């Protein structure tokens, strides 16, 4: 393992701990308020969330294909797959935007616009905590996606300028690792935020 790879993995471990603080908070409150948390799933748009999950998984596929293209000095494919990954990333953010907008309109934004939790008023307070965690965790995730798309733009420019080939493709690999990590965070977020309580 070379230094850059070790550095990127170490950085990703810091990200695990960063998101970990929010996951820990989620675990604590879900343990305390199991029924309230379960009741929030009906307000979550599983269709949009599920679509986003598929979008991100596809983006990870195109990302790893981009890394492969760089390894094989295939500039055309590298550029193609970087662009596809960015399109998927932007699609994710657009869908997220629709979700957030819907939550705002329905009055499900804690602290700023919280009036729409009407199905189970006895759970309203505790549900507010879950909804805050929803916005905080998906928001932090979206922020990391934005950074990722920025990094991909940088890679795209470099790829266009013929910087990468079979002898030098480390930045593509490293940013690929970052992208996969952001994807995996979503894989954990989706079931924990969208899919609890649907079996009831």
């Amino acid at each position: 393992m070379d230094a850059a790879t070790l550095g990127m993995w170490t950085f990703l471990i810091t990200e695990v701990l960063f998101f970990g603080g929010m996951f820990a908070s989620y675990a604590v409150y879900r343990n305390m308020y199991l029924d309230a948390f379960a009741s929030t799933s009906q307000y979550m748009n599983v269709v949009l969330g599920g679509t986003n999950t598929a979008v991100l998984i596809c983006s990870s596929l195109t990302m790893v294909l981009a890394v492969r293209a760089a390894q094989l000095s295939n500039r055309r494919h590298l550029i193609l797959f970087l662009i596809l990954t960015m399109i998927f990333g932007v699609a994710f953010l657009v869908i997220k935007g629709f979700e957030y907008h819907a939550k705002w309109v329905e009055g499900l934004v804690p602290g700023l616009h919280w009036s729409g939790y009407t199905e189970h008023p006895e759970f309203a307070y505790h549900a507010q905590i879950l909804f805050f965690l929803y916005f905080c965790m998906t928001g932090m995730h979206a922020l990391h996606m934005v950074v990722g798309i920025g990094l991909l733009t940088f890679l795209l420019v470099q790829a266009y300028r013929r910087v990468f080939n079979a002898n030098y493709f480390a930045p593509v690999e490293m940013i690929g690792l970052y992208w996969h990590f952001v994807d995996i965070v979503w894989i954990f977020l989706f079931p924990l935020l969208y899919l609890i309580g649907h079996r009831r």
Partner: protein
Amino acid sequence: MATLAQRSPEVEAEEVNYLNVEHGWKSWLLTTDHKRIAVLYIISITLMFFVGGLMAVLFRINLLVPEGLFSAETYNRLFSMHGIIMVFFFLVPSIPATLANFLIPIMVGAKDLAFPRINLLSWYLYIAGALLAIYAVVRGGVDTGWTFYAPFSTTYSNSYVLAAAFGVFTAGFSSILTGLNFIVTVHKMRAPGMTWSRLPLFVWSNYATGLIQVLGTPVLAITLLLLAFERIAHVGIFDPNIGGDPILFQHLFWFYSHPAVYIMILPGMGVISEIVSCFSRKRIFGYNFVAFSSMAIAVLSFVVWGHHMFITGESMYTGLAFSILSFMVAVPSAIKVFNWTATMYKGSVSFDTPMLYAFGFIGLFTIGGLTGLHLATLGTDIATHGTYFVVAHFHYVMVGGMVMAFMGGMHFWWPKITGRMYPEAWSKFAALIVFIGFNLTFFPQFILGYLGMPRRYHAYPPEFQALNVLSSAGASILGIGYVIPMVYFIWSLKNGPRAGKNPWGAAGLEWQIQSPPTTFNFDETPVVTEEAYNYGPLEEIVG
């Protein structure tokens, strides 16, 4: 008292080194040379140290009279800013960002750290965070304590909580990047023959510190963000009115802040290993034990955070577990103290200034560590939590320990960093002043705490006045002890005698290159064939 310092008469004209190779502000502000970045850090953290120290001067003046000289609100802001600045802007970066930044590449036989530009970025993040903290100070500070407990910090405080929190948040990323850089450097950049078991213990200590920085600091980052969201938008995560739990804040906060104290002390322990070995002319006793004790401290530091919360509502069983684990984490520290002592046994001990600070460290850190066991014990903690006993405990380990180690290290490596020697008589005098001033300041606080004086109070019952006056008097002496080195260190830059490669006759790669070093440290990559601390008889060592 015997001293080892040797001046090198052959060095007259100044050779090319990392300080004079380039001039101009761009060559400093855009440098990627780890040694220049270390110098930038030395200047920055020294400035922050004096800002934090100023806060202390002011509140110790307040504590001269039982009714207090300032208002409670003002007092709260003074001790809070003192804590925030000293912890996050002095102690956490101190040795890693300065001495370790300078020395680790050289000690492993490399030209620079693994990621030089990230090193520079970490300094800029530190400066950004420090500017936010200074902004908070100038606008009146925060009154939440450095611990930022909810719901006071999130809901009721009228002070500049967000500015201070974001300052700490930014400085935290500086810390993460430093740790990341050290971890990758030690794994990947060691010279041929430099196996893990030949590394100086200073490297082991800073490697372990880097592990803690990388794993712990991100949790502080998210905790401060949650605090900010609560304060800005009142989302409810720590609000008991809707079922939020302020104790969750404490768990998240201390999950970082306990390991943080080991971020603060481990590098100091690394310095002591280097100094004790050199000034005993003997290899460190029990190298493997000392190296692995650093790793054990790093691991155990993550499972003791609950000892800060024994009386805030943990179950008895949780308290029991954290208490036992806190006793366990004391063991590796004690192992180090025993090994340093054993190193000195039958060694040829000399009393140069770095060694004076090392002696101070060993004694005072031991006192601080032992009193930590009082606090780790559930029964005695109930009586002493929130009192001056705690304040004295952590100042003994942080100031009596860490700051002394920092001073010792600065004196030990000053000739290497600057190419100059400081005046020995003044440095010994200052070390003595620091030792006297420190004990006079903080020993009375053990007694005050045991007698029941609470911490973070601007006023106190009149029967405690004598001890408080002693403590404030000690603080003024301690302050003088810190100012004197500032003066002679700056004086020495132009007027101190020039130092050669190895004024102490010490072992280690850093002593085989010129003082100050060239930009890329080594003319050729060294090949290492010996263990660390390979001290032979005194006559063989040439300065």
